[in-house]
């Protein structure tokens, strides 16, 4: 187990280092990075001064080393718009995104896993067909359109819920449903197929043959064995939830990381963009590390491989 943890930690460190490199490479995509790092109303005569001050006249390897060293301390420069530390701005918005993401994750697990299990157990029954149709629809419906439609029905017509912003629990309802919809559809489909796979195994036949009640067969023998693919997908999709938050937060004016990133992109405030992109990549990588370690702990076959 220790060797496994050490090698996973090493891989994680490598991926993080490479993702910093990717951010650096992105900042050079436009050819002239000065244009990304200076205020929009700058005069042409000041460009050179800026280039010198930001160090863009140095050789690229020197710039790269300086970028990585600064980023390792969490320093991505100063926001061009707010004149504050970019990473500080991003971190200040993180709790709102975690609240929204956590709520929709709970919602997903509360809806999708039971739905997946029920549709698998009642295969080809009415519930299975209804469930399959709704998961297919859920996967195909773009979140931003679902959001607009919910706002139209519940805010414009019925006036039950606020159109956006952050405040009480009522503000959380629509954004977390929109964010959970796509995710739930995938988790429900995967749970269904994982449970179906497990139900075909011989140990289930054995469990039934020795006279176990259906509740224990499903609740214990089947569910535990179908947990691994579900946990894997939940981890892999966490990054896409963070990506979905970019859109959901924009529609519902939710003051989180995603909305900050979109605004920073629109304002061409690239230090903030790069800090946010890196933070999201960092969170995703750490979530996957935790998921990997969790199933090495759950399943000895993985850590002995």
């Amino acid at each position, binding site marked *: 187990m220790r060797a496994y943890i050490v090698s996973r930690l090493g891989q994680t460190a490598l991926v993080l280092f490479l993702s910093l490199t990717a951010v650096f490479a992105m900042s050079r995509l436009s050819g002239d990075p000065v244009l990304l790092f200076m205020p929009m109303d700058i005069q042409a005569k000041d460009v050179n001064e800026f280039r010198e001050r930001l160090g863009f006249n140095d050789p690229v390897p020197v710039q790269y080393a300086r970028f990585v060293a600064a980023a390792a301390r969490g320093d991505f420069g100063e926001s061009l718009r707010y004149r504050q530390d970019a990473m500080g701005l991003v971190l200040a918005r993180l709790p709102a995104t975690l609240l929204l993401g956590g709520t929709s994750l709970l919602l997903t697990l509360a809806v999708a896993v039971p739905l997946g299990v029920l549709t698998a157990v009642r295969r080809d029954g009415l519930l299975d067909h209804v469930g399959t149709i709704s998961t297919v629809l859920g996967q*195909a419906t773009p979140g931003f359109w679902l959001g607009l439609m919910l706002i139209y029905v519940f805010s414009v017509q019925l006036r039950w819920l606020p159109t956006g912003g952050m405040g009480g629990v009522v503000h959380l309802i629509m954004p977390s449903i929109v964010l959970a919809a796509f995710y739930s559809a995938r988790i429900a489909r995967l749970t269904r197929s994982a449970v179906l796979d497990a139900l075909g195994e011989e140990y289930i036949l054995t469990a039934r043959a020795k006279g176990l009640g259906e509740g224990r067969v499903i609740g214990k023998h089947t569910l535990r064995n179908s947990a691994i693919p579900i946990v894997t997908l939940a981890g892999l999709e966490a990054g896409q939830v963070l990506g979905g938050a970019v859109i959901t937060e924009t529609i519902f004016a939710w003051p989180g990381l995603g909305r900050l990133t979109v605004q920073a992109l629109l304002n061409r405030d690239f230090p903030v963009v790069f800090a946010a992109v890196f933070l999201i990549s960092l969170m995703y990588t750490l979530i996957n590390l935790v998921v990997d370690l969790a199933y090495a702990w759950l399943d000895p076959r993985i850590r002995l491989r």
Partner: protein
Amino acid sequence: MSRAHRPFQLKKWLGLGLTLTALLVAVGAPWLAAHDPLRTDFAQSLKPPGTAGHVLGTDQLGRDLLARVLHGARLALFIGGCTVVLTALVGGALGLVAGFAERWPSAVLMRKADVQLSFPFILLAMTINAIVGLGLRNIILSLSAAGWVVYARVVRGEVLSVKERDYVHAAAALGMSRTRLLLRHVLPNVAPSIVVVASLQFSSFIVAEAAISFLGFGIQPPTPAWGSMLSESRDFLYVAWWLALFPGGALALTALGVNLLGDWLRDTMDPKLRV
């Protein structure tokens, strides 16, 4: 697969029907639409669906919504199609090489894929767009730059298993060159996976383009793209629901059709593939 009854046939026909409709609309938009999608008519602005001459109503500038939705299909399928072809070629080729060459090309490619997958797809494409500039060509390029990874991973995995099969070993023993082996024996056997991944990716590219245009980094108004139409509709949600309903509905139906088709293809061609 044993459960080859009703639901599967529904998948196939609904998927084929919706996808073919979207394709026909995309190709035939200029002939199907009675109006120019860009012609403004302020006397006719914000008319509800069913207004004489405007079946789906008009937008804030009096442009015919039906014409705009139809032309939107053209743009969506064009962008989705170009991206799918580009990513399949690049990702497929890289996956083939990585699977076949092993050692360092494989390791480099897979680490690159890990890193790229740690950035949310939409955010990555959007950031690239914000840096290199907006427009049709750039959105195709940024979607491709963000989307090739899936093919590379799947194809590499398939190649690793195909190249250990007996017929490949036999051909190698007969002295066939590596390039020929790759093209004659390995490629045809991984092609079904490429097709399946492409069809499943197609709908996510269409939705991603719409999302990026919705957020303002893709196709810009007044060009009738579903995403930018939805973005404009937000300002009129209180007075004109149809501006949000129809472009989004068209997008959802297209995505649904392509998704179902991809699912059906996977079930028939490659049931074990998990994408």
